[in-house]
């Protein structure tokens, strides 16, 4: 069951079995009226607080900056420097890896958990609250906690692995394992995000739909595939988008867990931008990289957005 595009009627993409009995589904169309009032406060806020920084940063990216003062016009030289900087490409590569792994894992696990928790079983409610706790853990503290837990000599994780018969994993001293460590911590923290939103989405799907479905087919998989997933897809898409956008800006966890090490193996692009811009005050270069990151995320986001909408609507 899909939602209507603006201004158009419904498009029945499900087997007739659903649409036949219930006339309600046709009603999910937009009120064809124009109305600005609701969005105005938000638009006003965004314009006030983000346009100035965006424009200013762009200007800075085109300048030579020393000690925070714009001391000259640099044209595109900051951007050119970026393309020749092997560290930039390294961090970009790592960021993409992190985004890919994190987004897929958190969404998949979050979805799975949301489905499981969507049952009317006793006691599930309490555990639901527990599952949201990772979200409130300050990422900086989480990184330090990770240092303790991934401690290679006697940390709990390696001790557990030892009991399971595996060797000592060099979690923080080896580039590849450090990458995995960061992904694990990131997944731990952000899965609840996907979980909460997807659960709310699942809960908004009314019971009647399912009852109707169960009459016609009792295959859980079919119900999931043809009813739940399409109904959930806008929310799912949103979750993936939001998670992806945030994953591109991952900073706190690499910062406190590995400081981008060993070497620069786990340095994300945002981390690099941060050290260049706010530690070394090389703001011109940092802003250039930031805009590049902005461009990439926009492009990826747009592509995903369009493709997703095509598939599901």
């Amino acid at each position: 069951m899909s939602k209507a595009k603006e201004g158009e009627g419904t498009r029945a993409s499900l087997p007739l079995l659903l649409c036949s009995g219930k006339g309600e589904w046709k009603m999910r169309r937009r009120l064809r009226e124009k109305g600005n009032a609701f969005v105005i406060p938000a638009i006003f806020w965004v314009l006030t607080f983000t346009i100035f920084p965006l424009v200013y940063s762009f200007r800075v990216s085109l300048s030579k900056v020393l000690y925070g003062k714009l001391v000259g016009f640099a044209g595109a030289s900051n951007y050119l420097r970026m393309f020749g900087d092997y560290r930039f490409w390294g961090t970009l590569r790592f960021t993409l890896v992190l985004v890919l792994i994190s987004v897929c894992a958190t969404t998949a696990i979050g979805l799975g958990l949301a489905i499981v928790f969507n049952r009317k079983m006793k006691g599930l409610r309490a555990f639901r609250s527990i599952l949201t706790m990772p979200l409130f853990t300050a990422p900086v503290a989480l990184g330090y906690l990770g240092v303790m837990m991934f401690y290679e000599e006697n940390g709990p994780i390696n001790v557990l692995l030892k009991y399971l018969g595996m060797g000592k994993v060099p979690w923080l001293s080896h580039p590849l394992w450090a990458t995995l460590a960061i992904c694990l911590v990131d997944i731990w923290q952000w899965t609840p995000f996907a979980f909460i939103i997807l659960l709310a989405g699942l809960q908004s799907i009314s019971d009647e739909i399912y009852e109707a479905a169960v009459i016609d087919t009792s295959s859980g998989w079919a119900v999931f595939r043809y009813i739940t997933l399409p109904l959930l897809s806008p929310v799912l898409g949103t979750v993936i988008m939001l998670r992806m956008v945030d994953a591109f800006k991952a900073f706190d966890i690499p910062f406190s867990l590995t400081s981008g090490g060993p070497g620069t193996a786990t340095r994300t692009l945002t981390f690099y931008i941060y050290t260049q811009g706010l530690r070394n005050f090389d703001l011109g270069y940092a802003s250039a990289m930031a805009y590049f990151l902005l461009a990439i995320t926009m492009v990826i986001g747009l592509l995903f957005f369009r493709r997703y909408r095509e598939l599901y609507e």
Partner: protein
Amino acid sequence: MRRRRKGSVVTEILTWVVVVIAVLWVLFPFYWTVITSFKKPADVFRLSSIPWLQFTPTLGNWQTEFTQRGPEILRGITNSIIIAVFASLLAVALGTLAGYGLARYRYVKWRNQSMAFWFLSQRFLPPAATVIPFFLLMKSLGLLDTRVALILVNTTFAMPFAVLIMKDMFRELPVELEEAALVDGCSRFEAFLRIALPLAAPALVATVIICFSFAWNEFLFALVLTYKHATPMTIIIAGTEHTQGVQFWYVSTRLLLAILPPTLLALTVQRYIVRGLTMGAVKG
């Protein structure tokens, strides 16, 4: 709305297995934090997973934290609470309104999708590039080292979430209830308030929690825009790293203190929000 399956016992057991694994996975780091906060510094890196068996717990860390850093920590938590509460409420308020508008109305100049995407794009730019302009902005407004500055900043960054999530939620809701209300003579706003909002209550709660967590964990802007009076808990936690290395035992105590208020909030407030909103839904 929950699904009711003519359940097999197997499914129930599987469900509980998954739940238990998930809960363990989530709680283990917290368990670790709790025991670390009771460890002597020398024990932190030894094999010390089980208290009393592998190490002797001590109250020393907690004592030191409360006595030496107590007022500072209290201020950090108070600031965090104030900033996060106001920022999330504001963000959700603005965002829900905008989300409703995007879900229900058609705009002439831009497609709704593009507007949604434009809201989302506010989050694309890495903070490091916008921090200095924000600093200058707040400085010229005389808002440095105030909670107001952080509330403004956090609202700005949390709002896109609220917009997008609420938009999707509202689109899932059937329109006819609102149409019926309009026919009855309600204004659009009343229809929104009395009908759409209560129905979207679960989503609203989720959004508030998410926005709250973002504001609660925000570090970079807090660092740059505050000095002493408005420092939230994240800065206090970062203060555990100093020239002698990271003091993991204090990281643990502060982490626990920092996580307590939001957890309490999540446990209690959730139910009240939902109940409060759904009460209005009975009418109409």
